[in-house]
């Protein structure tokens, strides 16, 4: 019995010590005191939402790859906050009147993380590898066309077709045209580069798989003279060391930012917004993600019939679905344009075909189409619970007008595989990442979600690239946007953004098409 008492005493003492530790640390998480001057801090801890499958800039189109590696690399051009390409590693460029011969003059004295100076052979090797991998490239470059070295600081490419939108494609955020040493390109394998060396402000140090990626500030970073706007300009980092922790559970990201474990947390759940807003130690900001849409498989099955697609378009209530997928209206931008209105390609052309919520018309179109009740296979995934929520609403709306819907929910890997085979699904509610040029929109690429093969669209893209000015190209795109909505090539829903959270002592944190910490600083 005496031993029992001793054991109880030990347990009670341990509990008391734990409580004391708890009380001792409870004062952390102080509010910041900004004087507007960026000062350098030792450490920044960021909670990232998605585990990147690779850090190779060209291998994968996953947004998580872009978010993680964009600080390592820079491109010849980068997007400003209006989604317009601006020179970054390029000093100047010339193009002929037909937009076929592009000559780029490189900035001199730019160093890679390994100390080597960036020269034309590095740019040529990097961009030629990018040409082979980027999925939007075929819209402007014919197979076999390559970048060439003119001299140590000049490269060029000669295209057989006019390509007015070449720079827009060159600045596509996913699979971006990163510049790395020619040796890194040469040693690249089928699973990506084996060393992560770029010219960016964040020097890669360590990738502890599934756990974190560690960077340090690149002391020899050579910034362009322009101020930071979007991804373009001076990308100076104000931290000596940066950790990107992989924290896939949103409740842990929220708990981590509340406890002070992380300085910045990516993709906060909309459900947690109210409690974070009430916390004076935390600030919130928005990141524009892309547009929600319902991809329709059009090469076979019921949606190969235009009238069936139009019936679905008339049946859809965008407000109801968006309320399910993005429960906070502050994070939704409702419009019909396939291109974001944050950039200059956004258009209202064809808005009359969007969000009509006309079930009578939908039923009439479905009857005219001869739809025989074949079940529509709708795919969704547990990886994105809001997709499932939206799919349930979509299923209900389609069934109300006479569709038979078979909703199949899988994990991400299975959905990914099934989505590549049009015989295995008819539609899927999902979101497409922000595109900076219409030719990079997934909906317009053969073999992508929906398998569009309309010659009207292909011809329009050829005309856009041969247009005499960007304004003329945008007019052609406006007509194409209307065509896509009229023929219900997919059911465009709305653009949306997601909340990012930061400690109140973090300043100048402005995500731009994903995570971005250039110019961000901590002032306690």
């Amino acid at each position, binding site marked *: 019995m005496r031993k029992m008492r001793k054991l109880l005493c030990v347990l009670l003492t341990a509990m008391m010590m734990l409580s004391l530790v*708890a009380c001792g640390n409870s004062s952390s998480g102080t509010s910041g005191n900004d004087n507007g001057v960026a000062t350098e801090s030792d450490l920044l801890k960021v909670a990232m939402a998605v585990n990147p499958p690779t850090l190779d800039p060209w291998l994968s189109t996953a947004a998580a790859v872009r978010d993680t590696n964009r600080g390592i690399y820079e491109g010849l051009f980068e997007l400003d906050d209006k989604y317009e390409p601006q020179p970054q590693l390029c000093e100047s460029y010339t193009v002929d009147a037909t937009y076929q011969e592009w000559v780029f003059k490189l900035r001199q004295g730019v160093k890679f993380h390994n100390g080597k100076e960036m020269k034309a052979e590095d740019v040529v090797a990097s961009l030629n590898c990018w040409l082979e991998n980027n999925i939007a490239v075929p819209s402007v470059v014919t197979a076999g066309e390559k970048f060439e070295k003119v001299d140590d600081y000049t490269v060029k490419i000669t295209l057989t077709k006019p390509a007015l939108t070449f720079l827009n494609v060159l600045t596509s955020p*996913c699979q971006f045209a990163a510049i790395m040493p020619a040796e890194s390109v040469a040693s690249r394998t089928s699973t990506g580069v084996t060393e992560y060396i770029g010219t960016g402000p964040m020097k890669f140090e360590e990738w502890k798989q599934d756990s974190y990626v560690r960077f340090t500030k690149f002391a020899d970073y050579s910034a362009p003279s322009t101020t930071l706007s979007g991804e373009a300009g001076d990308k100076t980092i104000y931290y000596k060391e940066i950790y990107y922790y992989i924290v896939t*559970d949103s409740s842990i990201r929220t*708990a981590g930012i509340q406890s002070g474990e992380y300085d910045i947390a990516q993709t906060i759940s909309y459900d947690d917004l109210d409690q974070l807003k009430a916390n004076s130690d935390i600030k919130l900001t928005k990141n524009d993600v892309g547009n929600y849409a319902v991809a329709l498989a059009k090469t076979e099955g019921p949606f190969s019939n235009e009238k069936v697609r139009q019936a679905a378009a008339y049946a859809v209530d965008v407000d109801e679905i968006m309320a399910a997928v993005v429960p906070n209206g502050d994070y939704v931008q409702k419009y019909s344009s396939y291109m974001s209105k944050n950039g200059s390609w956004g258009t209202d052309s064809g808005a009359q075909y969007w969000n009509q919520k006309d079930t009578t018309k939908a039923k009439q179109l479905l009857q005219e189409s001869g739809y025989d009740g074949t079940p529509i296979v709708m795919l969704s995934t547990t990886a994105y619970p809001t997709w499932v929520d939206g799919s349930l609403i979509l299923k209900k709306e389609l069934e109300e007008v006479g569709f038979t819907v078979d909703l199949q929910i899988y994990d*991400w*890997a299975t959905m990914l595989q099934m989505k590549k085979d049009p015989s295995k699904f008819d539609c899927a509610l999902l979101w497409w990442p922000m595109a900076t040029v219409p030719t990079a929109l997934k909906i317009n690429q053969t073999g992508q979600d929906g398998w569009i093969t309309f010659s009207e669209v292909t011809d329009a893209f050829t005309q856009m690239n041969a247009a005499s000015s960007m304004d003329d190209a945008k007019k052609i795109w406006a007509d194409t946007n209307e065509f896509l909505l009229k023929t219900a090539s997919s059911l465009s829903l709305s653009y949306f953004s997601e909340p990012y959270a930061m400690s109140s002592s973090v300043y100048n944190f402005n995500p731009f098409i994903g995570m971005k910490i250039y110019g961000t600083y901590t002032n306690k």
Partner: protein
Amino acid sequence: MKKYVAKRIVTIIITLFVLSLFIFFLTHNTSGDPASNMLGSDATSEQVQALRDELGLNDSLITQYFRWVGDALHGELGDSYFRQQSVVASIKECIVPTLELSFYAEMLALLLAIPGGILAARYKGRFWDWSVSIFALIGLSAPCFIYGLLLILYFGVDLKALPVSGYKTFAAGTWNHYRYLILPAISMALTQAPLLTRITRSSMIEVMNSDYIKTAKAKGLSGTKILGKHAFRNAFNTILTVLGQSVGSLVAGAAVIETLFNIPGMGQLVVNAVLKRDYPLIQGLVLVISLIYIIINFIIDMLYGVVDPRIRVTGKS
């Protein structure tokens, strides 16, 4: 004894062979594709096929199986598709946090369960018995991640006392290392302790009713001596069996807690490997986890002999 050990080793080899067949064909017949996963949702079918070719995924399943088994017999489990390292290196890297976490959780569970179970048996039907039974019932009533989340909210978010996620090695400082493991270890221990408590209690009650305990009491031995020297030692055989299963399930079942607390251990590795369809890693991990489970049970069987002299003398187990 030697014959028994040899027999057990042969059984282990046969088990592993059957297991290898099962793991391989189940993994490869699951929907989803590592190449699609690696290349992202926009990759064309041609790009996916090209990568599948390079990874050897378009070879027949039989060819792939014998390639894998051949490598495994040489101690090689192939290379992870995503981690840019071998499966063996990945496991080596991740096994330490899992073993550590399981060890601390099991120690904590034992610290709660053994005194709790003895106390409940000693005061059967009285206040301490009821208190321990209620504690055990609460522990059994919810999965470990619920305790994990509650602990995170209280100690991490409200008190800001302990980190809510992550893992630090000893290189980051001893206290820093332990503070990252406190909440996950408690979460796991809270679900392990109730079972061990109940087993301890019931074994102790059974032993306490046996004749030799009555004799000991009649001889006038003190209650503590009877409990500690005579009753507990004999009840420990049953506890040891459950303990073995408990340790095995902790190692294999750390996935939820490791994922919740973002600990780069075997559990999280398994979850990520399955989600990405990293076939070599899934196969290697299941094989290694099974092996750990088998070895733990083997050790427990051997320990019976140490704990119970009757087994030692007869050579039976």
